[in-house]
């Protein structure tokens, strides 16, 4: 290969690197939108702020559109560049993470809808455990994205281990919330409707943590080529 060909190759590659950088930036932006949606949905629930809940619902269209734009961009990069190796893993992981983020947006929207359905009724019990679950889930989400952006195997593995343990904590809190609410229903069946609302909120928050875990697993795939889902692993490096 002569110098001119090398230069052309290297210019094409630089452009592709820039586009991969843009893809990453889009995901970071989308993640910011989703974190805010979860935070706002839980705050609105706690403060009985219907306007704010409605805003979360309206904003979900924006999140959905961002997801589709990222998807379209990934498809375009695959079509145009026929990516290989680390590039391919990066684009595939981005595509999947955009999907996970979109679902987290739906959970925020779900919480906002429940909050509106509750109308003027105060929550059945003081909201302590659910916001705690929410804080943990949002923190997990942030760190799963950090793991993805780092592309550093050791860092990603550390985050995956931490997140697994935090996901267990969120699950424990969810079980506790369910138990507490069941007790309130048993003590007075008239509590059933309000208990069900909170049960659904807690369920949505628990799912956010699960999705954050999925994102960390995609970050692991990007960094190592290992496909992981919970306790199941396929190592693409071995036949």
């Amino acid at each position, binding site marked *: *290969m002569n110098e001119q*060909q*090398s230069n052309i*190759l*290297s210019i*094409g*590659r630089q452009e*592709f690197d820039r586009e991969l950088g843009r893809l990453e930036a889009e995901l970071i932006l989308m993640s910011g939108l989703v974190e805010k949606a979860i935070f706002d949905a839980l705050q609105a629930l706690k403060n009985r702020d219907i306007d704010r809940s409605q805003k979360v619902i309206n904003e979900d269209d924006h999140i959905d559109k961002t997801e589709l734009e990222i998807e379209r961009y990934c498809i375009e990069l695959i079509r145009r560049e*026929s*990516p*290989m*190796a*680390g*590039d*391919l*893993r990066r684009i595939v992981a981005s595509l999947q993470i955009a999907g996970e983020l979109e679902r987290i947006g739906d959970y925020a929207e779900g919480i906002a809808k429940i909050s509106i359905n509750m109308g003027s009724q105060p929550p059945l019990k003081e909201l302590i455990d659910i916001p705690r679950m929410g804080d943990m889930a949002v923190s997990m989400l942030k760190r799963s994205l950090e793991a993805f952006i780092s592309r550093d195997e050791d860092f990603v593995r550390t985050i995956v281990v931490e997140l697994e343990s935090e996901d267990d904590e969120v699950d424990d809190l969810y079980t506790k919330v369910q138990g507490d609410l069941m007790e309130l229903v048993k003590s007075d069946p008239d509590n059933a409707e309000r208990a069900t609302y909170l049960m659904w909120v807690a369920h949505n928050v628990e799912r956010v943590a699960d999705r954050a875990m999925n994102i960390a697993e995609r970050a692991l795939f990007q960094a*190592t*080529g290992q496909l992981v889902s919970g306790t199941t692993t396929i190592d*693409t*490096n*071995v*036949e």
Partner: protein
Amino acid sequence: MALNETDLLSQAGSVENILRFDDIEPVLESNDLSVAYGDQTAVSDVSLQVPKNSVVSLIGPSGCGKSTLLRCFNRMNDLIPSASVKGTVNFAGQNIYGSEVDPTEIRFRIGMVFQRPNPFPKSIYENVAFGPRINGMTDDLDELVETSLRRAAVWDEVKDRLNDSGLSVSGGQQQRICIARALAVNPEIVLMDEPASALDPISTQAIEQLIQELSNEVTIIIVTHNMQQATRISDYAAVMMAGEERIGRMIEYGTNEQVFGNPKDERTEAYVTGRIG
């Protein structure tokens, strides 16, 4: 990785990045194979195991020794006076570079298809019948010609013009006739040196499909510059690399999924993602 890191490109690959088959007997195996043209080493210390009925692609930047390596596998380099080969290539229980081995017989059992279709200036029929005739076969040549052209997926296109010159058909058809010519002597391995690089996309597709069909019965080792082609047609990929001193080395060998999905050697990653070319 910067393009000018030639030191890195000159380094041999790690042994752990070279796939070895413990549980099967490879149909072809090179051990510490090196080739030189005069004083210039062109390929150094390649130890490659090729499983039976697999498709193995040899990939790497221009001038990294892929074609030189390929030509070692049927002693085609013998035809170049200055070429010398060290190491062994084991095939069918013997080193094909052993003193008692007849290179012509090896070339029948390990056939070769070149980059540019090179039919002889004879009829299509005679092109295919050529090898069997040299081997002394005279009976059932019609049947053998038909079977070989069918195996090369070109029979339907040429069956009514078998007496026309092999040069009178399209490039894609010529290449499949050359594949039929190689298949007519029933080789165990077919070596292909960029067999589709001079062909249009439709002919390329036909050759790729043919390679996949043939791999049920024949082992194929193919040099290709087209990475997508390598991922489509091969089971395993061997990556060659040469630094400034132009000595080609195999730096990685593994399944397609591994080499193109998650390479172990950073130079492979740089090559398959277009950072070095």
